[in-house]
């Protein structure tokens, strides 16, 4: 089970990679220099991507522990494990770690960092030093927030609503917020770097419409990062000023406006949802096309839908505030715009699905994640309509329905895409294949665990269970137990990739430059790539997805036939050899009997010379 590779999926390269077992690995970005310093001072976008990969994985793991404690506590209506205070600190930590330190950087800063220059045919990002700085800002922010969350803990939720976070809390809110503030600049710098790189560093012939869709989505994401993140920085700054100097910005008793905080917060945080989601969509486009061996259907529509999402996402923040005293007219406008932002997402889903038509589909691990993404994203996206519509949102706002909805989008979609992407580009990043059988097992486990965790939360939410409750009414008990059971399965599903991916670093099969026979520029160079990615700058003459399902089928059939022929011949030879051997040992032939007799007499004689 462990050793299954891409073979059998028709993805083994025609000419197997010939790497003599004892020869030294060719120079690549991983082995060009060694030592901690060479990593901490690296300017190579690929190494920075690996640094990010490690750091966001730590954030995900810690956020996951907080989630586990939350779910365990909800096993009993009166709370199973934690005091309400600790419970509040845990869901706050879960939200902050997952949103600001995992989801936002996850795909752009790891896969994006690694792939944007490679897909463009460039040596590196436009500003390598800025790139390293952005990692350091992330780490400083992460360390600060984490220390404050672990040592003190805050009970504000990741949303930090004033005046709860300003006048009525005694935890280290300012420190946690400062960490997010600093990490925000990391996000801005990464976005800036990507925008400039995509504008200025495309290889000769790489026109905008020859770019892989991954880059279009990354570009849209970067725009939101650059334009949106400063607003959350301002909001956090105002909150800090409010707490430290009692400035009265959000404090109603001194003429401030508590709802202003929500406007500012969601002005960033709704677009931020798309900072988390668009990169997921970026990955899915690449996976679907490679494993159906077909160009993405409606390339331009998929590309422009990313841009449409980026633009409209800035105009929908008020849909988080239908139960505030926001004017009904404003709510109406926000409602209709929220319905509109659903359309480009739907267009993407339909185009991905149509890509499968007349394809040659291979259910590899990344493809399973991609197909899982589409299904879960349908549910996550469409339940967004329940919340975009004002009448139903009044009931559903601040209940578990909302929790289920955004977890379908953030976990069911983004995390699935992230894992799919990590598996897909793992051979490029590390030079090794992950074990395919384990990969598929984990993908299916995650899908099942996820559905069991979050579907009951829709029901609990519709029945009125408010979110952020440490204790709850007994009629929600069953749904919560189901949800915790699902979370356990999900936890296992996350643990598996950690184990087998680490295992594959040493024992995984050598991947070769292009194990998936994919068409992007990143696959036209060695795995792992050299420091400057390409031996010479590639020249682009065609679009990004030169796949043909039909010819792949023919080639694969031919390849299968050759394989079968070889296996047949090998089997024949083995049978013949076995038969000869058994005939000999049974002594059916005179020659054989002679041989046996000889062997028996010799074995006695040979005892003696051993003494020498």
């Amino acid at each position: 089970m462990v050793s299954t590779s891409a073979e059998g999926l028709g993805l083994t390269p025609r000419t197997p990679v010939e790497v003599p077992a004892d020869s030294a690995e060719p120079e690549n970005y991983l082995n060009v220099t060694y030592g901690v310093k060479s990593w901490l001072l690296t300017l190579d976008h690929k190494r920075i991507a690996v640094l990010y990969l490690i750091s966001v994985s730590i954030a995900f793991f810690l956020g996951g522990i907080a989630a586990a404690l939350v779910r365990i506590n909800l096993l009993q209506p009166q709370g199973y494990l934690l005091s309400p205070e600790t419970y509040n600190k845990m869901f706050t930590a879960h939200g902050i770690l997952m949103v600001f330190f995992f989801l936002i950087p996850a795909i752009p800063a790891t896969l994006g960092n690694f792939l944007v220059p490679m897909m463009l045919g460039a040596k590196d990002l436009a500003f390598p030093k800025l790139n390293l700085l952005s990692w350091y800002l992330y780490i400083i922010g992460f360390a600060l927030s984490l220390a404050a969350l672990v040592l003190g803990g805050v009970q504000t939720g990741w949303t930090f609503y004033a005046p709860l976070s300003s006048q009525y809390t005694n935890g280290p809110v300012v420190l946690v917020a400062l960490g997010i503030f600093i990490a925000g600049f990391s996000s801005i710098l990464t976005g800036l770097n990507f925008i400039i790189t995509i504008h200025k560093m495309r290889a000769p012939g790489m026109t905008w419409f020859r770019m892989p869709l991954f880059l279009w989505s990354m570009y849209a994401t970067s725009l939101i990062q650059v334009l949106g993140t400063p607003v959350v920085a301002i909001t956090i700054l105002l909150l800090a000023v409010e707490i430290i100097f009692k400035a009265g910005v959000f404090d109603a008793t001194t003429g401030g406006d508590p709802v202003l905080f929500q406007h500012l917060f969601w002005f960033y945080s709704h677009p931020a949802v798309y900072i988390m989601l668009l990169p997921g969509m970026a990955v899915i486009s690449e996976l679907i096309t490679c494993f159906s061996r077909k160009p993405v259907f409606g390339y331009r529509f998929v590309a422009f839908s990313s841009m449409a999402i980026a633009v409209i996402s800035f105009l929908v923040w008020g849909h988080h505030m239908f139960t505030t005293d926001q004017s009904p007219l404003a709510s109406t406008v926000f409602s209709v715009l929220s319905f509109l932002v659903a359309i480009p997402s739907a267009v993407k889903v339909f185009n991905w699905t149509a890509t499968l038509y007349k394809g040659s589909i291979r259910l590899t691990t990344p493809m399973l994640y991609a197909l899982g993404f589409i299904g879960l994203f349908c549910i996550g996206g469409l339940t967004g309509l329940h919340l975009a519509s004002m009448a139903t949102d009044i009931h559903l706002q601040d209940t578990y329905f909302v929790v289920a909805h955004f977890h379908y989008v953030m976990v069911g979609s983004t995390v699935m895409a992230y894992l799919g992407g990590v598996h897909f580009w793992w051979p490029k990043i590390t030079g090794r294949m992950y074990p395919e059988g384990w990969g598929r097992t984990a993908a299916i486990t995650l899908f099942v665990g996820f559905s069991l965790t979050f579907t009951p939360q829709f029901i609990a939410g519709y029945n009125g269970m408010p979110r952020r409750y440490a204790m709850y009414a007994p009629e929600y008990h069953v749904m919560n137990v189901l949800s915790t059971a699902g979370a356990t399965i999900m936890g296992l599903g996350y643990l598996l990739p950690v184990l087998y991916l680490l295992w594959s670093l040493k024992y995984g099969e050598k991947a070769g430059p292009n194990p998936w026979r994919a068409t992007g520029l990143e696959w036209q160079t060695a795995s792992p790539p050299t420091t400057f990615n390409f031996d010479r700058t590639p020249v682009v003459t065609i679009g990004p997805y030169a796949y043909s399902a039909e010819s792949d089928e023919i080639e694969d059939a031919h390849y299968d036939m050759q394989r079968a022929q070889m296996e047949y011949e090998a089997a024949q030879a083995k049978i013949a050899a076995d038969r000869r051997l058994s005939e000999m040992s049974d002594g059916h032939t005179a020659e054989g009997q002679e041989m046996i007799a000889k062997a028996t007499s010799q074995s006695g004689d040979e005892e003696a010379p051993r003494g020498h």
Partner: protein
Amino acid sequence: MQSSISLLPEQSATQAGGIDALFWFLTFITVLFTALVCIAIVYFVVRYRRGAKADRSNPPLEHMTLELAWTGIPLLICLFIFGWSTVLYFKNRLVPRDALEVYVVGKQWMWKLQHPEGRWEMNKLTVPMGRPVKLTMTSEDVIHSFFIPEFRVKMDVYPGRFTELWFKPTKAGTYHLFCAEFCGTLHSGMVGEVVVLPPAEYEAWLQTGNVNKTMASRGEQLFRQHGCSGCHGQNSRVRAPYLEGIYGAQRPVQIPKAGVPLENVPARTITADIRYIHDSIVLPNEEIAAGFKPIMPSYKGRLSEEEIVQIVEYIRTLKTSNGTDNGLSHGGIQGYPNNASGGTNRTNTNRTGDVGTSDIRARTGINTPPANLR
């Protein structure tokens, strides 16, 4: 304490049916589209899996009609749902004019509910079946949110301002009252119940328990204790606006501007509603009754939110000497873009008057001359 599974929440108020219909339509759309996409995926994966014999020649890479169709059809569906939802939302938002009034004060971590008749409750709201009830809500500290799932109503509750919520219970029973906006350590303990009684039982309930004084009479007491009557009373020597008939009336105010003498600031008209009176008590220099000097001291910190609504309730009962009843216009809808539309809506909903109103009104003192109360 048996943990029965609940899959469908009870519908116990007039708003619930409409919201549920829309909810289930949306859910139907969700399931339908997800199913269509999933079926298509499974079908394609089976039909076009690697090695399966299938026609793969000339795969289409773009199809304008198809793109327009799957942009246009979802758009139309979305706009249809938006229309439905918005009409329903505005319908649900209109407060009937004859609604019973209850004042709600949220504080960490309890709900205090005051009936104008004098009864008050903690974490429990008792209301009659079949009559609209309007809650006027404020918070002593952080943001809370008043949520009754069985009624499908929810509204955030803020410090320093008033929000409104109304419902008309259709079934007697006991329902959940939740705080839906995270409000600190014991957020999940800020729960209570809503008890809907048949009208007769409700009348009886009102007469029992801690009925010492109506809200208005407690307000009147505070009005004297804190010296408000010294300036605003009939015989005062200080020049301060008289408050008789002020509630709900259009009043000219001046909003001071830095560097401009007050007499040069043009007056504008506002409605003297609960917000205005509340703010005049705690922030008296923000909106000054036109023509008066800004000499009123702030009562911020000296009166709790609870006491302020009692004073407001008292002021509402004050009538002009000729008996003009300004008090009736309190059934407006807060937060409408302008007063004009609020006014039209009021006229529309006024038609939903029902029997059994007058006796309640008599007790709340809305139609009673102030002399009777004093």
